[in-house]
């Protein structure tokens, strides 16, 4: 519904427009105004006017009250308008103007928000700077305190230094005289006593007349106490010491924790695995299913000289648990006695394989492994391989005389065969 009952009058600079609202309530949101376009839209009522000439829309006002809106529009150019609106505007122009107005209004809104943002930023910055200044001030205060301390201390130092220099100069001049006297005395005493330790060269040399670089300064003690009667040099002696052994040679530098852990794990594993092939072992007694018991049995047989029985015991034990290196080692020993040299080599090799990683724990076992394999090789007349194994054993246990002797023997043998051929 178009609102057409409006009244207006104008002055050269302003236009006053009064618009009655037929009972409708108006709020500022209903009024839309731009440079050339004015619209009041209170559904279902609508008033719009394309203004004759541009107005200053920022300064113009609208007063809502008493059932009508009173517009005060300030003209951009002071001139008298023929009429409020453009009468003979065609539709297109109207449309264009309307759109333009809307766009302009939007732009204005955007600019306003941006301006607001900018001011907010500025305020923030200002606040930040203020806090920074405060903190700076605090820091400076502390710095100043420290500086004062420092300066005080520096001054004291300088004072002390100058005192030193003066004291030095004074004392050195004094000293000169004293030293000359001392030398006289010392020389006398020297000639008296025949047996005297070598007088240290303090009293006799170096009486500089003036301190060259301040080096020739004095001692606060009188020269007497020091320059004569120093005890003779100590008679030389040696004190032997032992060092506390360390489980790890140095704190973690050369430690072999990782390897030792591995070995312990392996042993634990080996104990736990028992072969599942128990079908034919059902007729065995309880104790005969225990690899350790079987190993002991085997050892006893070996000691008694019953090597075949020992081998049997070890075989059974291996079937039950093939991860225990000691079984292979002992079986190798049996084979050696039985002159089954290839089997001996096999078993020693298997044992050595199981004895990785090499740690102090399994040292003895490894030595045995190498020695047995070496023996087997030698008995097969493979002397070089044998020597290799003996040397490996020697490396692990360098203090073992037997191994050394045997290694020597093998070396001679090798040299002998080489010479012979």
């Amino acid at each position, binding site marked *: 519904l178009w609102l057409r009952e409006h009244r207006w009058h104008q002055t050269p600079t302003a236009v006053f427009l009064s618009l009655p609202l037929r009972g409708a309530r108006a709020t500022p949101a209903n009024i839309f105004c731009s440079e050339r376009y004015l619209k009041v839209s209170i559904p279902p009522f609508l008033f719009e006017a394309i203004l004759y000439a541009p107005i200053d829309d920022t300064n113009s006002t609208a007063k809502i009250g008493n059932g009508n809106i009173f517009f005060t529009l300030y003209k951009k150019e002071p001139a008298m308008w023929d009429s409020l609106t453009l009468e003979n505007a065609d539709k297109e122009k109207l449309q264009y103007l309307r759109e333009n107005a809307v766009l302009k209004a939007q732009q204005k809104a955007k600019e306003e928000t941006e301006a607001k943002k900018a001011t907010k930023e500025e305020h923030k910055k200002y606040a930040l700077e203020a806090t920074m200044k405060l903190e700076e001030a605090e820091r400076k205060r502390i710095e100043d305190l420290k500086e004062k*301390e420092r300066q005080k201390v520096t001054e004291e130092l300088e004072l*002390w230094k100058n005192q030193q220099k003066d004291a030095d100069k004074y004392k050195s001049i004094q000293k000169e005289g004293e030293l000359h006297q001392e030398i006289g005395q010392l020389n006398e005493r020297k000639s008296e006593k025949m047996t005297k330790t070598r007088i*240290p060269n303090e009293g006799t040399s170096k009486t500089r007349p003036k301190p060259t670089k301040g080096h020739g300064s004095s*001692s606060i003690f009188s020269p007497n106490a020091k320059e004569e009667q120093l005890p003779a*040099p*100590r008679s030389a002696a*040696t*004190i032997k*010491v032992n*060092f506390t052994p360390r489980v790890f040679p140095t704190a973690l530098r050369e430690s072999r924790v990782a390897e030792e852990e591995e070995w312990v794990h392996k042993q634990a594993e080996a104990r736990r695995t028992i072969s599942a092939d128990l079908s034919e072992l059902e007729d065995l007694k309880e104790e005969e299913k225990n690899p350790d018991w079987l190993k002991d049995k085997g050892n006893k047989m070996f000691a008694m000289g019953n090597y075949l029985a020992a081998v049997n015991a070890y075989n059974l034990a291996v079937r039950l648990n093939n991860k225990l290196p000691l079984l292979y080692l002992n079986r190798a020993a049996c084979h050696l006695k039985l002159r089954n040299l290839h089997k001996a080599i096999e078993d020693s090799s298997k044992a050595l394989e199981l004895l990785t990683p090499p740690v102090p724990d399994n040292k003895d076992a490894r030595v045995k492994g190498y020695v047995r394999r070496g023996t087997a090789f030698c008995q097969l007349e493979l002397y070089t391989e044998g020597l290799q194994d003996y040397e490996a054993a020697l490396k692990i246990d360098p203090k073992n005389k037997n191994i050394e002797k045997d290694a020597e023997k093998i070396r001679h043998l090798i040299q002998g065969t080489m010479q012979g051929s």
Partner: protein
Amino acid sequence: MSAAPGLERPQVVSHAHQALNYTVFDCKWVPRSARLLCLGSAARGTGLIQLYELRGARLELLREIEKPKPIKCGTFGATSLQQRYLATGDFDGNLNIWNLEAPEIPVYSVKGHKEIINSIDGVGGLGIGEGAPEIVTGSRDGTVKVWDPRQKDTPVANMEPVQGESKRDCWTVAFGNAYNQEERVVCGGYDNGDIKLFDLKTMSLRWETNIKNGVCSVEFDRKDINMNKLVATSLEGKFHVFDMRTQHPTKGFASVSEKAQKSTIWQVRHLPQNRDIFMTSGGSGSLHLWKYEYPAQRSRKDSEGAEMGVAGSVSLLQNVTLSTQPISSLDWSPDKKGLCVCGAFDQTVRVLIVTKLNKI
């Protein structure tokens, strides 16, 4: 350094510092002067001795002496105040005593050890203590040797491992108990944590213990008195203070230990003017200033009636971080209370002043 409430505590003020172009291993004050020496190793593998003077807030280089082998440590401890000869140990195991006025030829020289001399100490000089001046050196070859500058070529005492025994590096040595002409004691610290106390009068091992971690530095609180306290610092941030007045026949000396920094404690140095204050320097570039408090009773009787020492307690007075690299050497000036110099592996030497030590 802390602010207002802590301003009554001693403050460590940095007075001067000097950037060097070589690795400095040891720094020492020249006695009775405001000069200091820096000993180290240049990049080309030669040794350097530099003499600086403290002028205002700067260090001014007075003299530079170059030697064929890098120098690890030095001491003025065994020389008289007139002469002020410097004894140095170098990377090759040579012990040399130099007259800094004429440094071309050493006053005394001996190839004392087969490997690098890690630590050196002197006693009997500088008007402190009694008895003959002697120098002790500890080396990586596991031996600790005592030298008398009047005797050429052979040491007057030699503490070496038993034949056939695997040797452990000796990292530090210190003299102590030199209160009359006969008594003297040498303490050696080794890399497996052993601390051994050798009595030079009876030429025997007086006491030994093991503190589990390699011992980086040992020092008696005073060399020239009846031995009172011994501080031993080690790897992994721990140091032990032993009360040396009472030796129990089996338990040895009582001790208190403190874990200060997460890294190695490289050096401990007692304040020459107050034997209960000492400074430790750490691998994290920090310095800690400690005070030892004595217990109410220094010894008590144990169940069998033997005298046993009682260790006191240690409190931290101040700590400061100066560098990111370890501070490997530290020396208090014997003439000015609170003045100290420290050298770090970041190739700087710093002069520091510790204030308010009078009020402790």
